[in-house]
């Protein structure tokens, strides 16, 4: 294939990738978008296979079959609740692939037209080392994120004194190594960059707590894009540069949205040390405040006599796998002529949009599911807010108490609903360690049980009523 023709083909592939992202603007066009993405990938791969330097196909075919089989099996088997760790694992593979491609280019620069071994153009060396470093950081960082999400290691932040100083020192050391590598071009220095970057990736993710994982995953998503970009510059491949930039900015935007959802600055999250997997803060003195406790029958009765119900699901609902029982409950209520909708907080899951996928999997129609901005005003005109497995995202102190750690965080205004029903295992505070004043209000009723068990009990109670 001539160079001009392949350049056009890569451009076509890039346009397909842009269309793939564009398709995600609505669930109606999203599947078509995914097809565009697949088409773009096929075009890019075929174009490369037709390049004059690609002559032997056995290893390539073997690699694609092995990798493709593994990827297909994993993608078909994975539970939707495990989606965040899957994405983290996939990010690590992109990072590692970037490292290996850079290594290949370093050992055989002639194949990429960037010089001969031992005499590679300096610009290419710089691009190569940037791609390698970001790739290695993405790799180890994603492995840590995966281990935390999968529960292989504790989600609690790992902090030690001098941590930030150490990270800063290693960062400077990395810059020094890159400069040295560009002058010396020795393989040893190349692998030293890989190892050091890997260590940095590890160190920057361990201090970040389990509850901040949505930001971490988005950030690693962004990194994997920039790594691809760095490699794209080395290989002078526009498709790779464009795709890397798209992915990089996408991840950056998602990180920003997640930070905003928690009212945290990006640096605050990165510097870490905030929030463990569970409510580590322990028991907050409740004093002599009393709560109204109810049974499944009470909940069923209240909701059955309401005109409208807004369900607020949180991560606790996903952990308990209550989404199917919850959807069944909603179906029964809808059959009674009650208007049911779902309100989703931006950080309701463990990754951006996670809760929407979990509800969609339980066959909740997407036009009953609303984002915070579009539904918040409706709480005032709603009879019942049914909060299940969520806590901090409904706490009004975020609006009223400047001293609270969650002050300024956007919350769902469930307090404005006629009655608030809370399904929660205990009165313990959320991960932010803040007591929720809603629990003690007169129009609040608490249901202390597992989210799934309670939803099933309510379904049964509704059935017998």
């Amino acid at each position, binding site marked *: 294939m001539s160079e001009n023709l392949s350049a056009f083909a890569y451009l076509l592939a890039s346009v397909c*990738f*842009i269309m793939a992202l*564009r398709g*995600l*603007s*609505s*669930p109606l066009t*999203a*599947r078509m978008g*995914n097809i565009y*993405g697949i088409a*773009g*990938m096929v075009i890019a791969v075929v174009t*490369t296979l037709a*390049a004059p*330097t*690609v002559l*032997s196909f056995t290893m*390539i075919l073997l*690699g694609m079959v092995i*990798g*493709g089989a*593994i*990827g297909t099996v994993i*993608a078909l088997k*994975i539970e939707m609740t495990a989606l965040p760790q899957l994405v983290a694992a*996939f*990010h690590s593979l992109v990072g*590692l*692939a970037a490292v*290996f*491609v850079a290594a*290949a*280019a370093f*050992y*055989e620069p002639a*194949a990429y037209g960037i010089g001969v071994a031992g005499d590679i153009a300096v610009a290419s060396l710089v691009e190569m080392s940037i791609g390698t470093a970001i790739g290695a950081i993405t790799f180890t960082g994603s492995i840590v994120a995966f281990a935390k999400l999968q529960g292989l290691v504790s989600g609690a932040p790992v902090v030690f004194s001098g941590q930030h100083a150490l990270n800063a020192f290693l960062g400077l050391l990395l810059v020094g190594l890159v400069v040295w590598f560009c002058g010396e071009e020795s393989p040893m220095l190349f692998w030293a960059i890989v190892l050091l970057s890997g260590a940095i990736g590890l160190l920057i993710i361990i201090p970040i707590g389990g509850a901040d994982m949505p930001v971490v995953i*988005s950030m690693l*998503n962004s990194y994997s894009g920039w790594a691809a*970009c760095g*490699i794209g510059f*080395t*290989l002078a*491949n526009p*498709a*790779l540069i464009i795709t890397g*930039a*798209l992915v*990089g*900015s*996408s991840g950056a*935007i998602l990180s920003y949205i997640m930070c905003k959802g928690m009212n945290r600055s990006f640096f605050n999250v990165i510097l870490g040390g905030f929030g463990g997997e569970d409510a580590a803060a322990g028991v907050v003195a409740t004093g002599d405040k009393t709560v109204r406790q109810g049974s499944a029958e009470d909940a069923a009765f209240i909701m059955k006599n309401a005109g409208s119900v807004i369900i607020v699901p949180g991560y606790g609902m996903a952990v308990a796998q209550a989404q199917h029982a919850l959807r069944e409950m909603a179906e029964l209520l809808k059959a009674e002529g009650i208007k049911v909708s779902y309100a*989703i907080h931006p950080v309701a*899951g463990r*990754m*951006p949009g996670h809760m*929407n*996928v979990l509800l*969609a*999997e339980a066959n909740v129609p997407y036009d009953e599911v609303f984002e915070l901005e579009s539904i918040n005003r409706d709480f005032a005109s709603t009879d019942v807010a049914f909060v299940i497995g969520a806590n901090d995202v409904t706490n009004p102190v975020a609006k009223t108490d400047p001293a609270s750690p969650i002050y300024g965080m956007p919350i769902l205004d469930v307090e404005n609903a006629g009655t608030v029903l809370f399904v929660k295992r205990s009165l313990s505070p959320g991960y932010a360690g803040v007591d929720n004043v809603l629990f003690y209000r007169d129009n609040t009723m608490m249901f202390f049980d597992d989210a799934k068990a309670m939803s099933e009990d309510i379904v049964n109670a509704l059935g017998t009523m």
Partner: protein
Amino acid sequence: METDKIVEQASGLAKNAKALATEAEALMARVSQLNLQADHGGADTFVFYFSIFVLAIFVGYYVVWSVTPALHSPLMSVTNAISSVIIVGALIAAGPVDMSFSKVFGFIAVVLASVNIFGGFIVSQRMLSMFKKKK
């Protein structure tokens, strides 16, 4: 007689040498010209690719903001799948006939990127097929 032969040979050699020298000179000129072009072209290519890079960031910025928040998870898995276009670098490395370090690295990268491509697109498709409208 012997001397004549030697002189003849010598003059022949001298002629050859002269021709070679001219050729070498021409080559030198060509090389320096190419070098100049390469230097010049090198700077230009970087700027060219950098322009693409910056414009692509802007495209990404506006396209991603238009993605509905409900589809942020599929957005992640799709971007993850398409970032595996890094496989093009792996294919070039794995392409030559002769075995080398580079070819082995390329092979590993092909496997890793393929896991991602197939896994990423399939899991995205699975997710997206779940999003249904009210009946």
